[in-house]
């Protein structure tokens, strides 16, 4: 089959761009470890509170792990427990979340923290919260009438800034 010379150039250029994109994504994922949520841990969604760490939702400082804080969160129609979260700036945080009923979203608006919460599964994502401010957590998967009124918040606090302002 005959391909025009310009068409060959165009396809080579286009495909090379795609390959370059893929290399960037691949290095990011497999070298730098920036995978999205891929947790395979399961639990019984009807008895969520009986499974660790969901027996104790909230923010916990942890020792001896690769991260400094754990945020344990339970979603249910139409709220999040806990309803507000506070973290120190630059903390390495593992978010661990699940749902007690239908599928919910867990998205910290305007950031990379974005997971689907599905009944029976843990969803996990580890990141460094490196920008101070107050962030909105929204449910981004339709879950019923109260869907748009299902939210929580994260405050990332710069301890130094507070000190210097005093």
């Amino acid at each position, binding site marked *: *089959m005959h*391909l025009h010379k310009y068409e060959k150039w165009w*396809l080579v250029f286009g495909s090379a761009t795609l390959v370059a994109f*893929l290399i960037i994504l691949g290095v990011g994922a497999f070298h730098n470890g920036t995978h999205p949520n891929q947790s395979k841990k399961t639990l019984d969604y009807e008895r969520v509170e009986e499974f660790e760490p969901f027996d104790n939702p909230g923010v916990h400082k942890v020792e001896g792990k690769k991260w400094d804080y754990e945020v344990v969160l339970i979603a249910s129609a139409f709220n999040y427990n806990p309803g507000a979260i506070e973290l120190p700036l630059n903390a390495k945080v593992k978010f661990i979340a699940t749902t007690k009923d*239908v599928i919910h979203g867990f*998205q910290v608006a305007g950031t*990379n923290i974005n997971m689907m919460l599905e009944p029976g599964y843990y*969803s996990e994502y580890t990141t460094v919260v490196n920008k101070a401010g107050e962030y909105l957590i929204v449910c981004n998967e339709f879950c019923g009438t109260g869907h748009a009124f299902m939210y929580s918040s994260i405050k990332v606090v710069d301890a130094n800034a507070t000190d210097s302002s005093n």
Partner: protein
Amino acid sequence: MQQTAVTKFMKVDRKDANLAMANIYVAFVALLLGGLAGLLQVLVRSGQFNLPKGIGYYQVLTVHGVLLGLILTTFFIMGFQIAAVSRTAGPLTNTQRKIGWIGFWLMTIGTAAAAVMVLLNEATVLYTFYAPLKAHWIFYLGLTLVVVGSWLLCVPQIMKYAQWRKENKGQTSPLLTFMAVVNCLLWFVATLGVAVEVLFMLLPWSLGLIERVDVLLTRTLFWYFGHPLVYFWLLPAYMAWYVVVPKIIGGKIFSDALARLSFMLFLIFSFPVGIHHQLTEPGIDGFWKFVQVVLTFFVVVPSLMTAFSMFATFEMRGRELGGRGILGWFKKLPWNDCRFLVPFIGMLAFIPGGAGGLVNASYQMNQLVHNTVWVTGHFHLTVATAVVLTFFGVAFWLIPHLTGRTLTPQLNFLGNIVGILWGIGMLIMSAAMHIAGLLGAPRRSEYSEYGGATQAYDWVPYQIAQAVGGTILFIAIIIITYMVIKLAFFAPKGEEEFPVAEVAPGAEKTPAILENFKLWGVLLVALIIFAYTMPLIDIIQNSPAGTKGFNNLW
């Protein structure tokens, strides 16, 4: 010119025309009602308008998604493809046509059944019907009938193609018929996923025969179907771009072989990619998500080929008409012909649409946009502009061709207005959706101030812009509804051409390998097995206990 190939079938057979028109009528009724639902949504989300008591936002959203995403598209595609096959491979036999009519009625009954359940608020589960939200069983049954009906409308297209091949041994089949058949095969293989999901899981579950379903499995089956679904929408638009638009501008098909190759590539690469819709979900291994991301990027290649072919055709024709210099040819194109201008605006929208699609599929980057209104902005450029405007461009000549009327200069003018309004309205709405999505605004959500959060406050101006864009789009829908009524019942009688371009002179014969469905079928199955076996085994082996249904949350 040497021998002008005698095209045997210049007109769509009268009886086939009736079958095609039946589908097209339903499609445009769906457009009007689904468009009205869309208007209500953008108005509500602007924060300036409340729905009357008793109507829920998500009920309206379900109407919008089902009518426009599933009903408008499937009916229009079937109408167009039946007409295209009849025009290029000859009239259907009575048996073939009868099968098609049974399909049409099944689809229509199914649509009505599902619609009643949505209107009764028994099926406010959106068009993706994700478990464990559980709709009334009649809703699932209705959608099943739509799919089965669409299979029966595909059958006569494939039968006609097989008949043509038998009667014309050794010859290259008519391009439009070939393309219609590829799209039918894509549809068969795609709908298998959703058929398994609905018939073995959701339907018995909603009937109370089984108590629990595996939620992740239903979603994976849905997206096995959901991504090829978008190519099922796109390929008929590509049929018009490759074969119809060149004729409208007076040009030739750039390359018959290239067109067939791109369709075969779409057929095989549109499947092993569905998991890119599930990148932020638990229970699926990151490695296999990434494999499907890589395969997703492959499917860009046939779109690059198409873009080249289109602009090559435009430039060759523009130069033939005396256009000079780097861009002089561009001015020579028939900009005041709505059959060209309106699909052209669609093509333009596909450029940012495709680029945004790459962002969505980009593994980690997906986390920034997943389930934000950015995604809504994305598919309103691809399906709701590139595809829909091409369908409008087709309707402008196809409806009068089928009803024995003509596209008058006044209607042509209105057609251009529709295209321009659509372009402007969608530019405003889609741009606002993309930006608000980057700022974190979720999709599929009614107006909410999220407890007075500053971030949510920043989304409001973009939501008002969406309402402005959406209103312009609805005006365009009113105009095209008027046009469709005119073209179907009142325009002057006459002969409107069904434009089918010929291959450029001197083009090489199309290699037979491009029509070897066995070979491509084997590749298709191999790719599906490669991409899905491990993830599915993983999902099933690792699955938690199933989930009961929830039907009391809306």
